[in-house]
């Protein structure tokens, strides 16, 4: 006679095993059983059903236009990433984006649940049985984000970053959704150098020219002339300085 609690345990075990077999089978059809199954942009991730951290099972993919698969394990860097992602997730909530956490079955479920709860990231978390998906995609690290489009095609893989993590995730998602173009995406990925005000010679000239104009208004041509000359030293084409200097030099 099987006790109800044993029957429950057996059916959960069967479900997990069935999911693992299905996952491996689906993955095997997508990626040949070779050592070159390294996920690259363009690769297609097969859909599958995995056990959910809170119980039951869920499909990996929905009909969202962008999926972000977050591979993580309890640890400082995953904590930072999931906490950052909690802020990102709020920005992305209004968009067709599904964020799914993936944790190894080797992590005790209670530990994984507590860890996710502490980061305040509210996303479905699925259990990657035997690291099957992690291995098939050759993620190789935690945390890591595998980002796919509506056809489950990988368009970006985002590893841990101390700085700019949310900026880059948001930019990649917005680019994939067509909200920003290639130029804007590149500006986010490679922001270039932000100049200091003193680097902007045109602005420096404008300030001196403005001071000169106000000095001229008060009848202080001697002072104004010095200001206009300082403006022209910074920007010889500053029209206000040229005009002001001409007025001061008029007999």
């Amino acid at each position, binding site marked *: 006679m099987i006790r109800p609690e044993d029957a429950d345990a057996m059916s959960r075990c069967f479900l997990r095993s069935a999911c693992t077999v299905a996952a491996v089978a689906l993955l095997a059809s997508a990626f040949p059983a*070779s050592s070159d199954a390294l996920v690259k942009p363009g690769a297609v991730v097969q859909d599958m059903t995995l056990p959910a951290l809170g119980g039951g099972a869920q499909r990996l993919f929905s009909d969202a236009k962008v999926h972000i698969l977050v591979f993580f394990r309890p640890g*400082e860097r995953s904590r930072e990433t999931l906490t950052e992602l909690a802020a990102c997730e709020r920005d992305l909530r209004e968009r067709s984006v599904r964020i799914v956490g993936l944790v190894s079955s080797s992590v005790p479920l209670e530990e994984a649940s507590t860890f996710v709860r502490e980061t305040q990231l509210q996303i479905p978390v699925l259990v990657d049985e035997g690291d099957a998906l992690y291995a098939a995609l050759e993620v190789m690290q935690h945390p890591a984000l595998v980002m796919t489009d509506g056809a489950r095609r990988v368009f970006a893989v985002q590893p*841990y970053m*101390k700085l700019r993590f949310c900026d880059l995730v948001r930019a990649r998602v917005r680019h994939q959704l067509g909200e920003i173009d290639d130029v804007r995406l590149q500006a986010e990925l490679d922001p270039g150098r932000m100049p*200091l005000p003193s680097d902007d010679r045109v602005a420096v000239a404008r300030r001196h020219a403005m001071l000169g104009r106000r000095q001229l208004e008060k009848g202080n041509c001697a002072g104004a002339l010095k200001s206009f000359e300082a403006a022209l030293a910074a920007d010889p084409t500053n029209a206000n300085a040229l005009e002001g200097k001409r007025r001061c030099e008029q007999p």
Partner: protein
Amino acid sequence: MRLMMRWIAGMALTLAVQVARADAPRTVDASFSRAPLPAGVKAGWQHSPYAADDCSICHERNDRKNPGRVAKNGTALCLECHGEFEALKAEKYQHAPVFADCMKCHNPHESQQRKMLHADSVYGLCTACHQGVKSAAETATVKHDPVTKGRACLSCHNPHAARVEKLLSAAPFDQCIECHSRPGLTDDKGVPLTNFKQLLAENKVLHDPVASKDCSACHTVHGGENFRMLTTAYPAKFYAPYDPQNYALCFGCHNDQVVAQPETTTLTRFRDGSRNLHYVHVNKAERGRTCRACHEVHASPYPHQIRHAVPYGPKNWMLKVGYEPTATGGQCAKTCHDTKPYVNRAPTAVAR
């Protein structure tokens, strides 16, 4: 007994430093005088209207001794001439004082510092508020000179607004490489530092943090406790007894199970069947090969940043790693050991 006392003293000192750092406030609201310098103190930099004796540009009267109130309060007056700062409101990251009160940082009359900055140095000004940075920089075991010398904070940060978080003037790597590509750069012991421009020109397989331009992923930039300001421990030598704590830097991202599991078909491709070769090489009580024995940390010509050669022995003889991929896995040609191929396409059925 003496050794134990020394150990206890060392631990107590470390704990005291940590407590002091934890207690130090990260940021406070410092304030400075906005008056002209005292008589007899030579100004290095003067505000143009003040230098021209045109007090009425900002004040009620053109009377240096009694100019009266300023025409407007706060930043509104400054923006009348310095209008280009309005555009900074559109930037993603803004320094709070900029749009609250310019005079938090600038003396409106004159100063001994460039740009009429308060305090006696850029470092002194910034750390008047950012005391957490001051504490980190001054108590660090391994110090970073650009933090406290020369342009100091302005070496890396834009004090007004920026497109990168932490008010960085550019992505971390783009900042770092400005110095870390200068020929002849050395550490405080005279050891040459890597020229990263040259390194990356010659080696195209980049470690993820380098590809992401995120030096901060592994290095603490204001100063740190570890060699090369690494955030956590990283083995300094070719051999080390295996202890996961010693690999905290790598295991922050990389899966520690890749070294802990003797058998695997999922954690790594560096395996002969299911025999985990990371485990074989690294996980030893005495002479474990550290990550640096085989992997470059920044960039390499080979996949997985495998090294071309590694310094070995007291004279740092360059021992070639000799890695080659093969049709069924890979091999390392005879250097450390005889040429040994590995096959990673099917689990092994034979116990070694």
